[in-house]
């Protein structure tokens, strides 16, 4: 089993403020973290390695300082880390990002066949959830989004069964490997690093691949390759509290009726 996990360095949005004038994120002085969804994706990949053996490679596209998240991943037990970094990559949207990542995965697979590609469901700084699907489309692989865990994996038969979160519940889906998986958050407990892994991580030097190594089409890179235009950014309206139903202790049936009448037309309680 060889899994590639795509991870991203993001500002810790719990400490980010919105500039009220420009509506953009104020990033100065905000600590960087690994996108939390990606940590759960990595953990899922590491569990497959624990069970079936093999290897976990992490990749990230970002500036040189993003190397630190690869070290973090190695501290958790990843075997290899590659930083995809080049000035030409800067300013990429999800389209250009998935182009770079998928090319890198293809190159990794030439050296050592890749069975699974993991991504977080989305990155907390953009919340687009498009990069995973973009990689799958470019590599023409089956795509399993929003998974809540791998249920079975059969490396011999190239089969994988996952549990996916869908609108009204869960779905168990099987597909053929190689496949792309995007992971939900908090689906597993991210492991506490062991001392030997941390020491390995502290010594770890990531490989760096730029455009020289990846031989990409300049037109599809960075700002040039990013058709996304931001029309407007605004702070969402604050959610109002829901409707409150008054409970009348003398006539409980009345309250129950009221609740049932509200719930049945909605999808919460099937009729």
């Amino acid at each position, binding site marked *: 089993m060889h899994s590639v996990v795509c991870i991203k360095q993001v500002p810790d949005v719990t400490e980010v403020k919105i500039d009220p004038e420009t509506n953009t994120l104020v990033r100065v002085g905000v600590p960087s973290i690994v996108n939390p969804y990606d940590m759960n994706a990595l953990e899922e990949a590491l569990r497959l390695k624990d069970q079936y053996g093999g290897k976990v490679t992490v990749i990230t596209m970002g500036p040189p300082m993003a190397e630190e998240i690869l070290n973090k991943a190695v501290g958790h037990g990843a075997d290899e880390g590659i930083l995809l970094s080049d000035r030409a990559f800067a300013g990429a949207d999800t389209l250009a990002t998935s182009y770079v990542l998928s090319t890198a995965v293809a190159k990794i697979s030439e050296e050592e066949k890749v069975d699974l590609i993991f991504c977080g469901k989305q990155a907390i700084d953009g919340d687009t959830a498009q990069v995973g699907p973009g990689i799958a489309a470019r590599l023409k692989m089956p795509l399993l989004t929003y998974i809540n865990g791998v249920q079975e994996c059969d490396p011999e038969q190239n089969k994988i069964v996952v549990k996916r979160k869908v609108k009204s519940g869960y779905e168990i889906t099987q597909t053929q490997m190689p496949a792309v998986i995007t992971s939900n958050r908090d689906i597993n407990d991210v492991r*506490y*690093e*062991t*001392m*030997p892994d*941390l*020491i390995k991580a*502290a*010594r770890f030097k990531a490989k760096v691949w730029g455009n020289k190594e990846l031989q990409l089409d300049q037109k599809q890179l960075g700002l040039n390759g990013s058709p996304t235009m931001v029309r407007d950014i605004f702070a969402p309206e604050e959610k109002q509290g829901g409707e409150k139903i008054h409970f009348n202790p003398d006539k409980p049936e009345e309250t129950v009726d009221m609740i049932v009448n509200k719930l049945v037309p909605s999808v919460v309680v099937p009729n």
Partner: protein
Amino acid sequence: MEKFDAIVVGAGPAGLSAAYTLADNGLDVIVIERGDYPGAKNVMGGILYSEPTSQIFPDFWKEAPLERPIIEENYWLLTEGSVTKVGHRNEKFGEAPYNAFSVFRAHFDKWMGEEVKKKGGLVICETVVEDIIQKDGKVIGVSTGRTEGDIYANVVIVAEGVNSMLTQKALKMQKMNMKEDQLAVAVKEVIYLNEEKIEDRFALEKGFGATIEVIGDATKGMVGTAFIYTNKESISIGTGALMSQMIEKKISPNDLLEAFKSNPMVRPLIQGGETKEYAGHMIPEGGYNAMPKLYGNGVLVVGDSAQMVNGFHREGSNMAMISGKLAAETIVEASGKGDFSEKGLASYQSKLEESFIIKDLKKYKNASEYFDHNTELFSLYPELASDAMYNFFKVDGTPKKEMQKKMMREIFAKRSKTSLAKDMYNFWRVLV
């Protein structure tokens, strides 16, 4: 099983200076820190001194994250409604190599950590050293709270700071439970103000900084001081006093700081600012008399864990860094001989004795205890200074000769001539 040349417990100025010096000499060193990153939990006023820092990190001011070079230092004797000031501003302090800088430890310690890594040292964070591993009376490693968490080394440097649990419990090099008059409790706030406001209020040229150390009402007569330091876009303000006195007077550190901030002499400096950080920490005040055993079989103790703070001169980080460096140099020499026994490491003590560290700590060795029992400097003297200055500056038609007599009368009414003479002698004896 990993074995290093040296393990350093704690990534403060002491531990990181030791690690840097070791790595720079080609030794394989690992630093273990419990915080998220070096400096994450560390508290200091914080004034960092240039000369000792550059002994370890030459020309550090060119790259390190610093706030403002300090060009002016002040002492204030504060009462509830008055202040008597002495200070010194000097242009020389504003030129390289500078004298001191205001810093944030969260930034500065992190930077030192990166420098250690650049030299090949390992820095492992979010990991607590729970115990010291000893075999046949010799320290051989540490155990951490992690899976497969034991690591081994020829020497362990304990740089765990003031709350020296390992030095006390695991190593028994320090007495258990420090006495309450050997510790000060300090609290600090960082209040944000824009740069121009700070420069206006402290009459500073762009980018430069000033400090104020305050004695008197700031500590409600307890043995301690308060401080106000300028950062780039904020002011660090704090108070600290001996724990014994806080307990005796039942004053909480927080109330003390609030009272200080609302003193009319202080309020205008911080007015309109927004408090963004609040931190509390202990400061070792036991000095020379409270120092632990500094070296043993395979182990050295540095910085605050070894009580190396000179409270009267607000110096701790410099002693921490230089002790770290001296410990590292001791280990480099011991590595040459392959002898990490107590005897092999004994030169650490003599290096400290020759340095300013033990000389200064010896000089002030009775100060904390003396003031704990004679708090006049912190209560009466600011009042006396205020009375004297008030009469000196007040113009009300009193002939000068009479005014001077009145001044002396008022002073002697508060403290007799013999007591004053005794105080002067004692201050002289413990401080000079």
